[in-house]
């Protein structure tokens, strides 16, 4: 009941006209940028950070929540209407949604994605509302050794599970940890790896790492292998009122609920975030399909859009559980959100619900509001998103570069940050080029300093006794769960690989070919 009162207070804050406007602005700009091809949720959040630099913390976080959810919504529109596979989280939407669009059912695909996202987003936010305070209360009792265990879990799952090769993931993690080391060390005040450059003494901002890897690195990579020629967007016909037939509804609602049930728990554990959840949901729907739907899978089954899209958004809300209650980012997007919190001097973690309860609940309330706004915005505005999709690519990527530059320079108004951004960007380009995942680097950059602090605190308590790290039941459970998660992750990954092998992407295979395979 406690959290209900707090939530109502949160709504009271979030419903103030000025915050309502902030939320609307956030979801609008988040969707607009998320719709842009080649821009995933992480890049959306990283690029739009400068927008919040001059707002008050509550306003900034509300804008941010809107951008986060909006970016997730926007991605599905891209993958349904463009002919090519897109960002990882909504790639299975591309699989079925894109084929639905090709057969003239694009409107139904967009509608089931939007409504499914709304249903899943709302249900998952509800789960977040009731779970988070309890977890935070438990988390208050955790000691530094427990935190260290949690961080090690996050490191290894994000580093070893994301991407195709374990050593590449760990190398990426190591690069992030190294960047995190640069600067003045907190406990003894020593400078490390600063080359005596004063501006490096404050450390390298995670925003620079994120914008560099996602915006700059991605742009350089796309530029190196740009698809030339006209942009092919599948036209959407029919008015938005008649988008979904009664039959579409009856085929969609179960996948929405199943997707939510799959997405939320997977989002809360550090297992690669939305990516894994969408694939699991797709596999489930495919297996459960009966009759006519079974034959449609691979040629545009509405269940294959409804389920994964719901799972995607439920996982996005699930990611917020460890983020808000433990201060643990489990995806690159979450790492950027943490850095935004930190720039306001707010430290996410168990104390957040006590020290900043007004702020947290306003944030959670704005998630509910943002979901409603997205539903209202997305369906009628599809015509506009289609225009956004047609932006000529040279201008699109030139614009991304300009905003990346703005994000870096506006941090401290120092061109050295711009230079650091460029170096990180080139590294990000090379990493993509040679198949290294970039997310572990961002997570390493933000969690590295936290890991060191907790490790040194526990060593100070135990007077250097290493066994202190596993003295508490919680730490033991965490390390054994780690083993299970890694095992489970490997299994999920193999499943995903099998699924991909059995259902090739439209872009990599001509349509007739794919149909023959089916």
């Amino acid at each position, binding site marked *: 009941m406690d959290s209900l009162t707090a939530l109502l207070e949160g709504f009271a804050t979030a419903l103030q006209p000025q915050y309502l406007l902030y939320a609307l602005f956030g979801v609008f700009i988040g969707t607009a940028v998320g719709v842009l091809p080649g821009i995933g949720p992480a890049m959306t959040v990283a690029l739009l950070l400068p927008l919040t630099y001059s707002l008050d913390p509550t306003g900034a976080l509300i804008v941010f929540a809107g951008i986060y959810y909006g970016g997730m919504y926007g991605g599905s529109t891209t993958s349904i209407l463009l002919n090519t596979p897109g960002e990882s989280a909504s790639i299975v939407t591309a699989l079925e949604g894109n084929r639905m669009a090709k057969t003239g059912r694009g409107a139904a695909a967009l509608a089931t994605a939007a409504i499914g996202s709304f249903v899943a987003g709302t249900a998952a936010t509800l789960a977040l509302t009731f779970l988070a305070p309890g977890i935070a209360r438990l988390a208050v009792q955790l000691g530094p050794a427990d935190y260290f265990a949690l961080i090690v879990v996050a490191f290894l799952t994000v580093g070893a599970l994301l991407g195709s090769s374990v050593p590449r993931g760990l190398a990426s993690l190591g690069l992030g940890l190294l960047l995190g080391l640069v600067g003045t060390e907190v406990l003894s005040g020593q400078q490390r790896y600063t080359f005596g450059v004063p501006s490096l003494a404050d450390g390298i901002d995670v925003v620079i790492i994120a914008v560099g890897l996602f915006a700059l690195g991605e742009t350089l990579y796309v*530029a190196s292998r740009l698809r030339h020629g006209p942009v092919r967007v599948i036209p959407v016909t029919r008015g938005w009122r008649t988008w979904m037939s009664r039959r579409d509804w009856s085929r969609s609602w179960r996948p929405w609920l199943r997707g939510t049930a799959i997405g939320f728990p997977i989002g809360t554990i550090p297992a690669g975030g939305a990516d894994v959840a969408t694939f699991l949901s797709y596999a489930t729907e495919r297996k459960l399909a009966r009759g006519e739907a079974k034959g449609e899978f691979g040629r545009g089954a509405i269940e294959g859009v409804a389920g994964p899209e719901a799972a995607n958004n439920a996982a996005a809300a699930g990611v917020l559980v460890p983020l808000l209650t433990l201060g643990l980012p489990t995806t690159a997007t979450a790492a950027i959100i943490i850095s935004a919190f930190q720039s306001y001097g707010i430290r996410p973690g168990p104390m957040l619900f006590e020290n900043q309860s007004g702020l947290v609940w306003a944030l959670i309330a704005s998630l509910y509001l943002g979901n409603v706004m997205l539903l209202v915005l997305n369906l009628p505005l599809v015509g506009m998103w289609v225009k956004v999709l047609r932006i000529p690519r040279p201008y699109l990527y030139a614009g991304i570069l300009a905003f990346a530059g703005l994000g870096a320079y506006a941090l401290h108004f120092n061109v050295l940050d711009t230079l650091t951004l460029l170096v990180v960007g080139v590294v990000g380009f090379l990493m993509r080029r040679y*198949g290294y995942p970039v997310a572990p680097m961002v997570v390493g950059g933000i969690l590295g300093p936290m890991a060191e602090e907790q490790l040194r605190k526990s060593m100070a308590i135990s007077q250097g006794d290493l066994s202190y790290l596993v003295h508490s039941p919680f730490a033991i459970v965490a390390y054994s769960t780690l083993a299970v998660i890694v095992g489970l992750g490997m299994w999920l990954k193999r499943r995903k*690989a099998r699924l991909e092998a059995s259902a090739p992407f439209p872009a990599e295979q001509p349509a007739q070919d794919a149909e023959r395979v089916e």
Partner: protein
Amino acid sequence: MTESAPAPLDAQASGGAPPRGTRAPVGEYAFAAVCAALGVYAIIGAGFIRVPPGSASVLGPRVFPYAVGVLLVAASVAVIVQVARGRRGVPDDGEDVDPDAPTDWLTVAKLVAFFLTQLVLIEWAGWPIGVAVLFAGAAWSLGAKRWWVAVLAGLGLGLVTQLVFGAWLGLSLPAGPLLDWIPIFHG
């Protein structure tokens, strides 16, 4: 997304060499070697971190850097071993990425060069000019059809961001000597 990509794809991607194995993956070795070198640097550098005398903390400021260096070296060596055994990295996919195109290093170099102009131009000529040069240069490098559209769009973007972020949101972006005398750009 990358794990299931067919084998020929990554062979083509590494510099457009036709089938796998005809050309050593120099770039992959080089990048992994640079990562390993950074790890070695982290280890050596850790030795030079000053440990304040008389500090009672058990774990000094050097231990964690040592661990990071070791992780980086170990992971990079493992990558090198994998590559040597024929397990190459699989380049990323993307909506605008042509999976069959060879890497166009020239375009990347042009983009990096135009981004570098920011270092000089932002403070010397002002933010709007800096953005205009970056935007127009990048769009031209990426194959924009009409260069003057790119220049005009770049100038427009520079002025709009200056107004929105500098004047309206209050970030202190330098307007530059050309615009500084106009009150609205003063922020």
